[in-house]
């Protein structure tokens, strides 16, 4: 295999695996702030137990997130040296800013969050939780800014020729607020917050299903349900704004999202479908003119299709991009329906009476994870063949001095290590959940049968 494809596979592997964890850190971090805030405000033991329990899960998630994240900052250099030389003047500063303004905040207060219960006052501990949460949110800002610059480059000019040509910054704030960055940061934030709300719903839904820690779990479930409902509705709005942005700034990508080939014609919006790239035809269940309406609020307005771009400027994996994009939307809509339906039941006082709904929630924690992954796959594969849209091709970006053998070695190693890590992660996560929120050596008031009887009455 050639170096370019190996480098792409390795980047995809390392970033996808890494991206299981940061959204959970952000999302669980938010839930932790909620739980600990309630504990400080009400002084109720139940919120303390919740906070301590979720801190343990957070620690596990965070450790793997950091461990797999450090390589990401350096992989641009190891595997994408030509890219790094070409764009470092513009692209390096958001990465450095992430370290300075986000990761430092997050990591410093993490120590206090994990080990500080008996060392600092409760409000300092809450501030540490907020510090860690804000740090992770800031991290997302700078990383998504860097990536958005690859999607919609702004605030730079090209200096030099041939091997010495490179992008140099002209306007830092234009780079930061490039056309897609605000919508994409919000989109990523909400995706992450949903991942956190849904893992809380899943774990506490499971406890309610099993009649364990029922009082605590019902409280946690309701808090997370409110969060999940708000975030999934907001995500619908932001997602739609994001798509409008793609229509304006990356028309070839949008055309691939919907498998729209005709050079200049009203475009349909598919619910499910299949793209036949060879015959340049898309079939499936669709809303005729839907894409036109999304962009222009007019079912008949023409949209630039893939055929209006030369073959070498089109994404090559149109069907994959189409499918990833649609899986994201289907799941997004499903999450809205699920949370709204649950809120309706809650209003009718029947939220916990339907066992099947709890089962749905137990498994629904996978859905935000899947949407986060496929959403990024659609965004990144849809950007191809460009590594910086319209400016630098992926085929010109990889490290020329790294050999296929070296890459094969690192790729096999990462694959093995990540499979091992993932298996252990799932095992330990499951163990923590089965074990439950109450410590062996702690006052186990909730596991005490008497208190359980009181709660269930």
């Amino acid at each position, binding site marked *: 295999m050639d170096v370019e494809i190996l480098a792409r596979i390795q980047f995809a592997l390392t970033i996808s695996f890494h991206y299981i964890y940061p959204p959970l850190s952000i999302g669980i971090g938010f839930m932790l702030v909620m739980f600990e805030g309630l504990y400080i405000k009400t002084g109720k033991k139940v919120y303390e137990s919740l906070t301590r329990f979720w801190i343990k899960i957070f620690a596990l998630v965070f450790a793997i997130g950091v461990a797999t994240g450090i390589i990401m900052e350096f992989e641009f250099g190891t595997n994408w040296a030509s890219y790094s030389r070409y764009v470092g003047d513009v692209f390096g500063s958001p990465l450095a*800013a992430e370290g300075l303004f986000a990761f430092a905040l997050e990591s410093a207060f993490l120590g206090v969050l994990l080990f500080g219960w008996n060392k600092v006052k409760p409000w300092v501990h809450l501030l540490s939780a907020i510090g860690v949460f804000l740090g992770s949110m800031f991290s997302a800002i700078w990383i998504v800014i860097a990536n958005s610059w690859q999607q919609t480059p702004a605030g730079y000019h090209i200096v030099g020729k041939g091997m010495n040509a490179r992008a140099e910054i002209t306007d830092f704030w234009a780079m930061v607020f490039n056309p897609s960055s605000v919508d994409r940061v919000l989109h990523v934030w909400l995706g992450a917050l949903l991942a956190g709300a849904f893992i809380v719903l899943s774990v506490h839904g499971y406890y309610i299903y099993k009649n364990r820690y029922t009082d605590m779990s019902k409280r946690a479930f309701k808090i997370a349900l409110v969060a999940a409902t708000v975030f999934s509705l907001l995500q619908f709005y932001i997602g739609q704004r994001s798509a409008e942005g793609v229509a304006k700034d990356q028309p070839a990508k949008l055309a691939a999202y919907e498998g729209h080939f005709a050079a200049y014609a009203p475009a349909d919006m598919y619910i499910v479908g299949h793209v036949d790239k060879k015959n340049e035809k898309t079939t499936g269940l669709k809303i005729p003119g839907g894409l036109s309406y999304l962009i222009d609020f007019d079912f008949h307005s023409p949209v630039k299709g893939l055929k209006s771009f030369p073959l070498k400027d089109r994404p090559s994996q149109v069907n994959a991009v189409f499918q990833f994009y649609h899986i994201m939307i289907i799941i997004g809509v499903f999450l809205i329906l699920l949370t709204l339906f649950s809120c309706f039941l809650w209003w009718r006082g029947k939220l916990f009476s339907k066992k099947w709904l709890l089962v749905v929630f137990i498994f629904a924690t996978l859905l935000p994870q899947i949407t986060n992954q496929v959403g990024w796959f659609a965004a990144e594969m849809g950007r191809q063949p460009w590594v910086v849209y319209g400016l630098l091709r992926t085929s010109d970006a990889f490290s020329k001095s790294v050999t296929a053998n070296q890459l094969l070695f690192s790729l096999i190693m990462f694959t093995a290590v990540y499979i091992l890590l993932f298996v252990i992660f799932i095992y330990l996560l499951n163990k923590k959940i089965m074990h439950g929120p109450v410590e062996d050596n702690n006052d186990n008031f909730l596991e005490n049968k008497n208190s359980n009887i009181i709660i269930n009455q």
Partner: protein
Amino acid sequence: MDIFLGLDFQTWWFLVVGFLFIVYAILDGFDFGAGAWHLFLDEGKERRIALNAIGPVWDGNEVWLVIGGGSLFAGFPVVYATLLSSMYIPFILFFVFIIFRAVSIEFRGKEKMIWWAKTWDISYSISSIMLAFLLGVVLGNVLQGIPVGENFMYQGKGFFEFLNIYPLLVGACTLLLFMTHGAIYLILKTEGNLYNKLTVFVNRSVILFIVVFGITTIYTVIFIPRLIERFIANPVLFIIPFFVFLCIVNIPRLTGKKKYLSAFLFSSLTICLLLVIAGINFYPTLLLSSIDDKYNLSVYNAASSLKTLKIMLTMVAIGSPLVIAYTIFVYHTFRGKVKIEETSY
């Protein structure tokens, strides 16, 4: 004007990146060093205490690597790209060991089985040793020059080109220095039997370090004379190596007197000054080509635009006081000897 307080911006950025990597070496140096001793400690309580001594801080220490890496990328992208892609295998191994080390710390206490803790102890300690060693290996390669030719192409042949005598020596030096530094840190955080044990360890590692460092220095003088050219040209600079010598011999003197806080300051100072010596030798060069001097990368031909350097300096001016404040807050919160509690590893 492109001059700020008497220095040009490229030089300022050289100082910033140098500062960040020095802080990183001092901070992660002690926790790699502490990890390197792990298997020498008794299974059970001693290892738990040693882990908890670095528990609240190792993650914060690695932040400096991320900031340093980001700063190198932003300010000297050509060096960042060329160094990382040329030293592909050592860097990839470094990051894999970073992963193993972090997860070992987290996983170790999660199961009661003896083999479980043992496995992660081994993984943790070997990762720590390899991380210290690999940092030295990369430094050794940078010091003796990397075969970088036209168009920044790495001309090295073979998978293990990065492993020859000099990098191995510098790797061993780095490991032993970090082990000394880490043992002193652990001494500061422990008491009782463990403390006594470590006081013996530190004396052994510092003597080994002095021996290996001596050999490395002789090798440098004989085989890589260009690394001392600048000192011979300006003999007054010899005051720095002389001062390093004083720092190093001061470490066993202070540990003998049980003045461990001072010993820690001097082991930190040793790390700092050794890197300063390397910096003085190299400046303005950042990456030396062993093929031809015309392929050297310097702070001038490898830097970002002045505009980026100015933006980055502003960022560092705003950000570094914050980072230093968090760091002090964390070290202050977890000051004193380690006690095992319910939230411990």
